[in-house]
Every structure is written in structure tokens, then in C-alpha cells.
């Protein structure tokens, strides 16, 4: 299964929100949809789910229009989306039925998912009597009640404690393994790095970066090297090696650790050889890749 988003344009009144958005998502993979507040993430999600049409461009699943493909969606909105004052089980059954299930199946599935997130005992309670984290788990059960093919999670980890976050991670992991498409929108880059093989980064209505996360990182500057060794003053020790010909700078913030910036990334082996030759007993030699957070700030940071 392959979800393609092609050349999507959308404006509301005078505001041009999406200016030609392209990306693809594959089953068995999670795609991280990144972007600052107001970048257009929620708009593109709603267009994918057919809440409103794009001005131009198209969404397709395996080459078919979404409605023809018969694929189902599960959506976890950032701004939660259930009735606060109504009974939890009834609401989840209702959502399941709206998505085409019959009452019996919807009830079975609702109970199953409530059990999976450990909320069975709250099935007959009103939603607003629960803590925020527990409400979030109820929302997840509502999202997954129809066993959707394509799952869109908008900031799923907000409000979850580490134990619940782990449970969500496990569930998302299972969904990915079972061949669903998972679209994951978040500001929490740590989670995105854990789940997502590929990313699509939106900034001001355009995709500024997309593709396989590893490849993206590899494409970044590989001239920074982290060196760790069990020596008292690593900076002093390194300066004795006289690395000026290949290194631009040497910095050390913690004892036993230094970051060497090479003039040319191709000199990595040369540096390693010299370090070995110096007999300083290396603990670690690592090419420093930028974190997703750094990439995000770089790509989406400027106004």
C-alpha cells in the first residue's frame, strides 16, 4: 500500500496554506510529518482524509482515489475529539459505526482496544472524569476501533507519562509491523527519530525536506568527529598531536571527550590513524550526525 500526496495546493480566504506539497508513505513504515505550528500539518492531514478538497493536486492510494481504494483511516487529532460528557464505550462504538462497522463488531472492537490500553474499567464512565493521560488512551482506542489501514497520529505522546508512552510505542510498533501506514505528526523529535524511517518536513506550506531519515542524515556534513579517551586533559593531548593540517578546530566540553572539526570530511581515516598511532587508548571514535532536532531547527527555523 502506498499513499501519495502530490502537488497539493490549498488556500483559505486570503491565506495560502499549502503551496505544492509532495510526499509518499508506504505500508509497514512510519512517516514523520514535521513542521512548526501553523506550517500546514493539520491542513494536509484533513485533505488526506477528505474533510475538504485541495485547490489543486491529488491524493492517491496505490494509484486510486482515496474513496475508490476502500482504505480506512484512523485519526488521533491533536485537539482530542470525543464528547467530554458522554459515556466512553458508547462514543467509541459510535465512532466505529460511523466508519461503517455494525454495532456488534464496533462493540467487540471497542472493548478489545479498551482492554489493550488498560481502560476496560472506565468503559461506562464519562470521558471528562478521567485524567488527561487516560483520556489520551481512550482517544487512541477510538482512533483504532475500526482497525484502519492508514493511521494518522497528531501529537500522540502529549500528556502521556513514560509508562503510557511505552505502551503507545508498543502499539504503534505493532501497527507498523502489521503493514499499516502510520503518519506521525509531532514536535517531539525524539519520538519521531525512534519510529519514523522517513520524514516529510513542512515549512510555510512547502516540503523543505523529505525522504529516508538515515539518508538525510548521511547527506549532512560528516566532518565532525567525537573522540573519547580515558586521559586527564584530552584537549591538551590532542593539541600535542599537531592536527592543524587536517583539523579546523578542537573543542572539549567534558573531560575525556572532544569534538574535532575536520577541514575535509575525507580526512576521517587519516585522523583515526594518527589518533591510534598516538597511543592514547581510544574509547570511542564517532562521526557526529546532526540530530533531527538540529536539522529541524536549521530547515524550519528561519521565518
Amino acid at each position, binding site marked *: 500500500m502506498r499513499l501519495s500526496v502530490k502537488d497539493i495546493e490549498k488556500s*483559505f*480566504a486570503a491565506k495560502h496554506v499549502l503551496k505544492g506539497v509532495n510526499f509518499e508513505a508506504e505500508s509497514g513504515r512510519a512517516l514523520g510529518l514535521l513542521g512548526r505550528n501553523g506550517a500546514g500539518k493539520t491542513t494536509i492531514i*484533513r485533505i488526506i*482524509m477528505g*474533510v*475538504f*478538497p485541495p485547490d489543486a493536486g491529488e491524493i492517491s492510494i496505490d494509484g486510486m482515489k482515496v474513496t475508490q481504494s476502500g482504505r480506512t*483511516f484512523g*485519526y488521533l*487529532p491533536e*485537539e*482530542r*475529539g*470525543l*464528547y*467530554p460528557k*458522554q459515556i466512553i464505550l*458508547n462514543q467509541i462504538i*459510535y*465512532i466505529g*459505526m*460511523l*466508519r*461503517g462497522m455494525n454495532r456488534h463488531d464496533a462493540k467487540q472492537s471497542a472493548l478489545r482496544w479498551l482492554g489493550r490500553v488498560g481502560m476496560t474499567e472506565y468503559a461506562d464512565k464519562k470521558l471528562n472524569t478521567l485524567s488527561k493521560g487516560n483520556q489520551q488512551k481512550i*482517544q487512541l482506542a*477510538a*482512533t483504532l476501533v475500526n482497525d484502519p489501514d492508514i493511521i494518522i497520529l497528531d501529537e500522540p505522546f502529549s500528556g502521556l507519562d513514560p509508562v503510557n508512552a511505552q505502551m503507545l510505542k508498543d502499539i504503534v510498533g505493532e501497527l507498523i509491523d502489521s503493514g499499516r501506514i502510520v503518519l506521525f505528526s509531532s514536535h517531539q523529535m525524539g519520538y519521531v527519530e525512534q519510529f519514523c524511517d522517513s520524514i516529510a518536513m513542512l515549512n510555510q506550506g512547502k516540503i523543505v525536506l523529505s525522504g529516508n531519515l538515515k539518508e538525510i542524515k548521511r547527506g549532512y556534513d560528516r566532518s565532525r568527529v567525537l573522540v573519547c579517551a580515558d586521559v586527564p586533559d584530552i584537549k591538551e593531548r590532542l593539541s600535542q598531536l599537531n592536527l592543524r593540517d587536517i583539523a579546523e578546530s578542537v573543542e572539549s566540553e567534558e573531560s575525556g571527550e572532544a569534538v574535532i572539526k575536520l577541514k575535509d570530511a575525507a580526512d576521517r581515516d587519516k585522523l583515526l590513524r594518527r589518533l591510534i598511532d598516538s597511543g592514547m587508548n581510544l574509547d570511542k571514535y564517532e562521526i557526529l550526525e546532526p540530530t533531527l532536532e538540529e536539522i529541524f531547527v536549521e530547515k524550519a527555523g528561519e521565518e
Partner: protein
Amino acid sequence: MKQLKTVFAYEYGQYLKNKVFLVFTIIITALIILFLTLPPLLSDYFGGADDGNAQAPAVTARTKNLLLVDKAGLFESESEAEEVLLSYNVTLQSDGSADDASIKESIDGGQYDSAFFINSGADYTYMSKSNGITTGMDSEEIYEAVASRYRLRLYEEAGLTQEQIAGLTAAPQLSVIETGGSGFGDTYVYTYVLLMLLYISIILYGQMVATAVATEKSSRAMELLITSAKPNNLIFGKILGTGTAGLTQIGIWLAAVLVFYNINSGFWSQYDMISRIFNMPPDIVIYAVIFYILGFFIFAAIYGALGSLVNRVEEINTVAVPVVLLVLIGFFGAFAAMASPNGLIVTILSYIPVFTPFVMFVRICVTEVPVYGIAISIALTALSAVGIGVLASKIYRMGTLMYGQRPSFKELFAMLKKSKAY
């Protein structure tokens, strides 16, 4: 269709589970039963027994003290006077010994509420404390009683038989027959009652639709709903659910009214006003139901659209002002139609969808409207209701984008135009 049914069933079910809705239904039902049962019970208790006449109208207590100074000897005794002066404790004074000044004093002192002097058969004086509007009513009442007593005396003195006297004193019966529709007198009461019901329920249930939509928006529940169902189904399901809940409620109330009216019909049927309401022609009942449903739908659709415009439930009252004005125009148009059902403005109003439920309904009640005219107005209103409903669902869909500032009508129109293609 299946989705619409799901939304409808859920929304309707929510009303039936809603405590406020249930309590309101029960309280009004209890009030209806109380109102229809208590007066007959009380009259059996206090009025019916002593004169042996079960048909007696509600008893009036003798609350006022009257000094009757009868110089002409029209009344033999105080009890004879009280027979015709039902709400008075009569003190009869036939010798005229007391002077005006002392009587005035006893009125000021509160011993009597008023005094009536029968100076001669055809010359009376009424004395009471100035008592606003009731002074005139009281003096009229006593005058009537005394004057007819005097007339009776004259007839007797002229040697007429009881039958002749009865013939002379009986009030002639006037029956009015109007051509071109049912008579105004008969129709006025039930038309008025139905109009009030229509007006109250449209505002009441329309507000419920607006509140339901606005709650969905402010709680963000629509975020999930709108990605799980078609907005048309969500809006129409909600309108139908609320409408059916409203009909259920009204149905319960009407059933209570009918059952308890019939149980006590012996008592109530003597009141012309009330028995007229229950004797309305069946075709009027059918029209009332049709126009109730149409009126509810068109206004529920408008209210639904308004509900999607606001961000918080409290804002509904502000945006609902134009709707209330529309309802009021319809309401007053309907009053105008009672007075002149075939006037130009009234006729035009009766074909404008938002006013049809009020104005056309009244016209049907009080005059003869051609069948094709009724059909056209019903069709127009039904089409508009669906049209406004579709519009409401578009606004609802766009409502997801419009948290924060409420859009101006210009912006709204621009967006609606854009969304046409969808």
C-alpha cells in the same frame, strides 16, 4: 444513509439519556396533569355538593361587604339580595335611617367596601372608596342585579305570566356564520394556541440544535467526527435526532393533555374557549403537524449553521438574534393574517419559506387558501430547509478551520463559493 441513521440514532438516544431533558419533560407533564385535574376536583369538593348542580361553574367566595340601602323595597331580605349578588355579603337597610355621612364613615373605616342606595325603583347611587378599575366593575355588577330585579317587579306588576317574563328577559342568541373558510370566532382560539406552540418549540428545539453543534465544536469532538462521517450526515442526523426528540416530548405532553382532558371533560367542556381547542377540525391538526415539522426543520438548519459559526456555546445567543427576529416577524405576520388573511403583505409572507410555517398556517386556519397555494408553500419551505441544511453542513465543515475569530459574512460567502465544487 446508514451513516445518517447512525448519527440520528445516537443523537436521539443522547436526548433520551439526558437528565435535564427528561426532568423537563416530566415536570411539564406533571403540570399539565395538575392543571387539568385540580380545578374539576376542587369544584366537586367545594361547589358541586351544596346546590346539587354538578354543572355549576367555579364558585366565587363572598369577599366583599355591601351595604344595600333599599328605599324602594325591591328586596325582602338580605339572603334574597345575596342570591343575585354572588360575591357580596349584603347588609340590607330598608328604612333609610342612616345618613350619608355616617355611611361614608363606615366605608372609610372599612366596615363596608361599598354602599348602594336604591333611592327609588329607577334611581340609584353607588358609594365606595376609590378603588381604581374595580370601582366601575363593581358598580356595574350591582346595578345589573338591582335593575333586573326592578324590571322583574314591573313585569309582575303589569300582570305578565312567568313564561312571558322569561321570554322578555332571555338574552337573544347570536350565531355568526362567515363564508369563505371557517369562522373567525371558532378558529381564533386554537389558531392562537397552535401558533404559540409552534413559536415556543421552534425557538426551544432550534436552540438545542445550535447548542449541540456548538458543544461539538468547542469540545473539539467534531475533529474526530468530521473525519469519520460526512458533514451532511452529521448535520442532518443531528437535526432529525433533535426534531424527533422534540416531537417525542411534545407527543408526551399532548397525550397527557388529551387523556386528562377527556377524563375531566365533564368539567372542561362547559368552558367554551377550552372546548373549542379540543374540537378543532382534523385537517387543521394535520396542517399543524406538517407546518410544525417544516418550521422546525428550516429553523433547526439555520440554528445548526449558526452553531458551527461560534466557538463557545455562550456565543450562540449573540449570533441567534437575527433568527429570533425572523421568528418574530413570522409570528407577527401570523397575527396580521388572523386579522386580514388575504391582505397583500400577508399573502406574500405566506410564501416566503421562513415565514410560511406561521403565516400560511394561520391563513389556512382562518380563510380558504387554494390547495395548489398550500402545496407550493410547503414545497418551497421543504426545499429551503434542505438547502439551508446543506449550507449548514458546509459551514460546519469549515468550522473546523475557524477556531478563534468568527468569520464575517463576506469571508463566509467567499469560502462557501469556493467549496461549491466539492
